[in-house]
């Protein structure tokens, strides 16, 4: 039986993980390699590295780091951030990424998904969508959630899947950072609209939120979070154990 995936997301800037982390036993809490190893040992099913660097030097550093992570950790790695062209796909795949997540790059150039899926396969292309309710309609936001594109989200996601996106990361801006639970209403709409795996993001504050997510929406394949894992508010090992006790299939 396929298991539900738990995925920590790490923001990397100039080769370092940003947002303070607080783990005992880690000599360097902002080293992507150390943190990646830590999460992998805790039972994370996949890692997402998000490059939030703006400069080209930072980008170079990111690929060096990615290589180092990919040569020490043997679980799937997804890379996002600054992916605008096929060359960007190529750059991170050569460094050991398994999947590449596109967001603003696909909004600027919707053909990117099609081209990338054709070259690297659907399984390689993840469409990440930042979605927010505006006057009761789900709208796609670009530039890290700062800019309303005016596009209706479900249509946009469906189009992405038709073009070859093999997975969807749905990040609800409405619930992100609030720690009140995942956006079940938004997730359900997306799950009903597409047949590819959907990864829930935004809103997780505790273990119960993950239980509720997978119990209410069995179609959701994975839960992604950042700070609650980084700050140790939710420990992946405990989370997976509790999910298992609640009858949710997980890899332990």
């Amino acid at each position, binding site marked *: *039986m*396929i*298991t539900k*995936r738990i995925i920590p997301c790490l923001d990397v800037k100039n080769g370092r993980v940003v947002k303070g982390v607080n783990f005992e036993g880690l000599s360097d809490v902002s080293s992507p390699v150390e943190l990646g190893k830590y999460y*992998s040992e805790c039972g994370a*099913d996949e890692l997402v590295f998000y490059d939030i660097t703006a400069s080209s030097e930072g980008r170079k550093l990111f690929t060096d780091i990615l*290589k180092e992570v*990919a*040569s*020490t950790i*043997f*679980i*799937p790695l997804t890379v996002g951030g600054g992916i605008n062209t096929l060359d960007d796909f190529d750059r991170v*795949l*050569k*460094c*050991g990424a*398994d999947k590449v997540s596109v967001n603003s790059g696909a909004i600027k150039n919707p053909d990117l998904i099609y081209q990338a899926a054709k070259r*690297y*396969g*659907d*399984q*390689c292309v993840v469409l990440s969508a930042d979605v927010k309710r505006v006057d009761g309609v789900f709208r796609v936001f670009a530039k890290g959630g700062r800019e309303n594109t005016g596009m209706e989200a479900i249509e946009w996601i469906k189009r992405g899947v038709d073009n070859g996106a*093999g*997975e969807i990361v749905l990040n609800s801006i409405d619930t992100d950072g609030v720690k009140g639970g995942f956006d079940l209403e938004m997730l359900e709409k997306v799950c009903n609209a597409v*047949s*590819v*795996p959907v990864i829930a993001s935004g809103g997780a504050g505790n273990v119960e939120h993950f239980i509720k997510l997978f119990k209410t929406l069995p179609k959701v*394949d*994975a839960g992604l979070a950042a700070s609650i894992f980084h700050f140790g508010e939710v420990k992946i090992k405990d989370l997976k154990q509790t999910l298992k006790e609640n009858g949710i299939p997980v*890899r332990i």
Partner: protein
Amino acid sequence: MIAIVDYGVGNLFSLVSSFKAIGIDAVATSDKEIIKKADKIILPGVGAFGDAAEKLFSSGLADLVVEQAKSGKPLLGICLGMQLLFEKSFEYGEHKGLSLIKGEIRPIAEVIPNDYKIPHIGWNALKFKNPKNEIFKYLNDGDFVYFVHSFYGANCSDSVIATAEYGAYLTAAVAKGNVYGCQFHPEKSGEVGLKILKAFCEL
């Protein structure tokens, strides 16, 4: 030394790294002399069967791999590399494979229930056939490995050494003599995957 056949399909970085992690000398190469000298061969692959088969045959690497396998050298196909070991595939048309494993590659949609998502992607548990094959000697029944595929090995029951349940029992691994294949990615399956590669190296 392990030769990872590089025929221009997919990225071999993780595969090379995973052998390094278990202390085994492995090289990604298209050099036929190196492949001939290697103790064991890995046939990797991602993407579509037709493209990959075309590259493998037109480069002459297909003939070499078959010849080496027939001489008794251990060969491990991974993911699409496993599928290429079969006689043929029905992925977008009909394509010829290496015919080292009897059977064919068919869409998983034919055997799984409608409400199951395609591709079969994520961590799934292995169920071994009895007796447990040597490449699983360090594993326990129910160990998890990472899958990403939309097609599967069919009509190959005499070669199946492990299955994974996804609405149906899908072929997870095959073996016929010195020829092995994993539908999943050992190089992406954490410690469990490394243990499989280690056991393969010890054959």
